[in-house]
């Protein structure tokens, strides 16, 4: 099997002390303890299975069966010291079955196997629909900002006032307390959630919820409070909220913050329209 080695100097840099189980190698590297090598092998196996699925080489059922197979082999190895030693001595086809017990050597990678290393048939119905999983993956994203590294969870912002800020009702504004516990330069987003109660409008269904998200840079006031504005020229959810708040009489609003590291505050309390509506 693949022997994991790391240069001793790098290992020393990453560890305060080199574990006693680490065995020096003639080339100056070290061989990690078998448990650590197993952990590495497992991570690699799971990762490869996921990668095969993402490439489209495997179905969800294949991925699930392979994951379960890897987990089953792990349980066998962790519960049987002799098997673990045998695995450490050799696993040519990387199926986590020791070579000396592998009746099917050379198994294709990323395929589920039984405890003898032989392939297991996969029921193609035993997984969610491929298109559903890919739709979820395509929809989700990661957000990062290096200036937010090590930032704490943002404080919960408090909504202050919200309403139309002129008599012609052309602009809807939200005022909120700023989050001020983030490192310099760490971006903060403010997400408002409006809950419309009781179907006061023919434009919307009763008890509907709409969300709008603002980048802090969009605020028009930035001192003691942040004020965000939307109007009839806004798009998507912003336009929906702008329109709905005009015609609904009963709604609640709350806000939360998220930083560029993805840490999210809790939601503020729901503020009823009757309490906070007014010109910000």
């Amino acid at each position: 099997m693949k022997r994991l080695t790391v240069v001793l100097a790098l290992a020393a840099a990453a560890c305060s002390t080199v574990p006693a189980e680490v065995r020096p190698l003639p080339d100056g590297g070290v061989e990690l303890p078998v448990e650590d090598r197993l952990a590495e092998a497992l991570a690699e196996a799971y990762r490869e299975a996921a990668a095969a699925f993402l490439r489209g080489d495997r179905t969800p059922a294949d991925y699930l069966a392979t994951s379960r197979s890897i987990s089953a082999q792990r349980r066998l190895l962790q519960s049987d010291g002799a098997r673990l030693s045998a695995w450490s001595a050799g696993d040519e086809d990387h199926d986590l079955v020791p070579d000396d017990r592998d009746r099917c050597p050379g198994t294709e990678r990323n395929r589920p196997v039984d405890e003898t290393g032989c392939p297991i048939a996969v029921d193609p119905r035993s997984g969610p629909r491929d298109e559903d999983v890919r739709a979820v993956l395509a929809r989700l994203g990661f957000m990062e900002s290096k200036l937010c590294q090590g930032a704490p969870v943002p404080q919960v912002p408090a909504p202050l006032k919200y309403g139309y800020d002129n008599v012609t009702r052309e602009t809807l504004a939200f005022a909120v307390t700023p989050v001020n516990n983030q490192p310099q330069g760490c971006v903060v987003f403010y997400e408002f959630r409006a809950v419309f109660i009781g179907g006061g409008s023919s434009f919307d269904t009763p008890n509907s919820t709409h969300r709008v998200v603002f980048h802090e840079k969009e605020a028009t006031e930035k001192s003691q409070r942040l004020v965000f504005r939307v109007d009839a020229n806004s798009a998507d959810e912003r336009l929906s909220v702008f329109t709905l708040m005009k015609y609904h009489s009963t709604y609640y609003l709350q806000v939360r913050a998220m930083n560029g590291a993805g840490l999210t505050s809790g939601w503020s309390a729901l503020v009823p329209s009757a309490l906070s509506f007014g010109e910000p």
Partner: protein
Amino acid sequence: MRTKPRSLAVSLSILVAFGAGPARAHNARVHQPMTDFAYQVMRLAALKVPRVVARPGGISAQEWDDYLAAIDAAVPKLKVLPASLPTLPASRCVTDTPAWSKAATLGLLTRAVSAGYATSTDFDCGSEAGWSPGPVFEQHAGGTDYTGTGLGFWAQSIDDEVDDFHGWWKPTNFGGSAGKAKELASEGWDTGLGILLLPAVCFIDCVFGLFGSCDACVETAKQLSEGTNPVKNLEELMPGFGDWTGPTYTGLWHFINVRGGVSNEYDDRQGMLYEEAGPFGVPGAVDMAIMVVTDIGITINYQKSLGPKRYQISGATDSHPNTKHRDEGDWEMLSLGHTTFEPLDNLAYFGWRKFVADPAHSSRWLGWPLHALGDATVPMHVTGTTLWGHRPFEDAQERLYPSMVGAKLTPTTQEGLARSVLLEGFAWFRFVRSWQAEHGSAEVPVRDLVTALAKKTLAYSQDSQQLFWPYNDAASTEYLLTAKETATDQYIDHANAVELGRPLLFSGQGATIAFLAAAMEVVP
């Protein structure tokens, strides 16, 4: 046990928020009122309201009287438990001042405690405006006993135990290299928005090096970040790296998969394990997406997480085996999709043992078992899945809750519902007594109670399964990808939605009564 792996600083700080809210447990506005309602039924029983406490046929007078006597004794004891409410800042008490500090015990509460007492930023001083125990309780017992709201507050608060879970991405899981994505962070290229937004698949491409180069994905990411509004909906973003925690994730400890054929590797009950999720042994689409994404090396952060320390059980005295212990290396060895979390009954047992060991018997500790009893009434919690209709089902239960307990019915009609809950409670109290007799012990079998309730929920759910109720994976996908409200409405508008959901709720409230009645027997 493995040796502790090397800890390298996580250099990426990337967002992660499970879009479908995979781990958030049963809604606060169900946990709290279901506990309060159970307490109000106990009050009604203690007042001996005839139509409520009449002994049903087929039950011996001795058993029934034992049950009612336990309730009689429990109610006053519950009222003298320490309320243990945290002190609120003065800024929270602008419009109301219930003087919580004087409410040293639950019975001294002068207002209903709101679910957001500790976490909200509203100005109502943590009181629940407009609270009412319900028509029948108003009629017979009055509306000034807020003990149940205090218990309910602690029951729902377990979802806010955010330090139960901290996750992180371990570069060591890549053999020290995270590929292009790591380079992006170190290059420090930025956009006008101050962030880099990467599609999940693109990020995985980069980390896995799937196509030899992820440059095309990076270009896509740049275009996304430079868009006019890349973050339309924060909940569409995936859980990220660095240190991520929050109420969304605490619920990973709130599952008990009582479906047959699960691995039960570390306990005699199975907690959340995505590989084995789902009512039919098949994870939902988002369950699987989470598995795939976390295979890039997202694990629990053992040092920062309280869950492994709290919910791995040792020194058990309830006839169940101790947890097969995992240390730091074990917990961080597998990515989240392949990590088995401790089961819900262990969570209950943690709080229960704290309650027993606490000389003051703070009501806070009861929050854990009470929360577990609530979660054990949710079909998805007892099959270990964050999907299959999980969130829309729970949102619907919250919206339907007033109808289920007859909040707007006449006192007489609601009286019938209260009696139904009392009878459910008897069945669970009999379960407790049987366990105690069988084991020759006065211990309250908290873990068995949670497990039995979970099994009952599963059996009911399987028997009741229709095309869209209760298990409905398409609803979860819709909840995430298109329309939350529409997904929830599938449950709300389902024929007989109230009648279908009520048995689950009542069973949990009955178990709550049995638990509280038995629990107070350990209080002097």
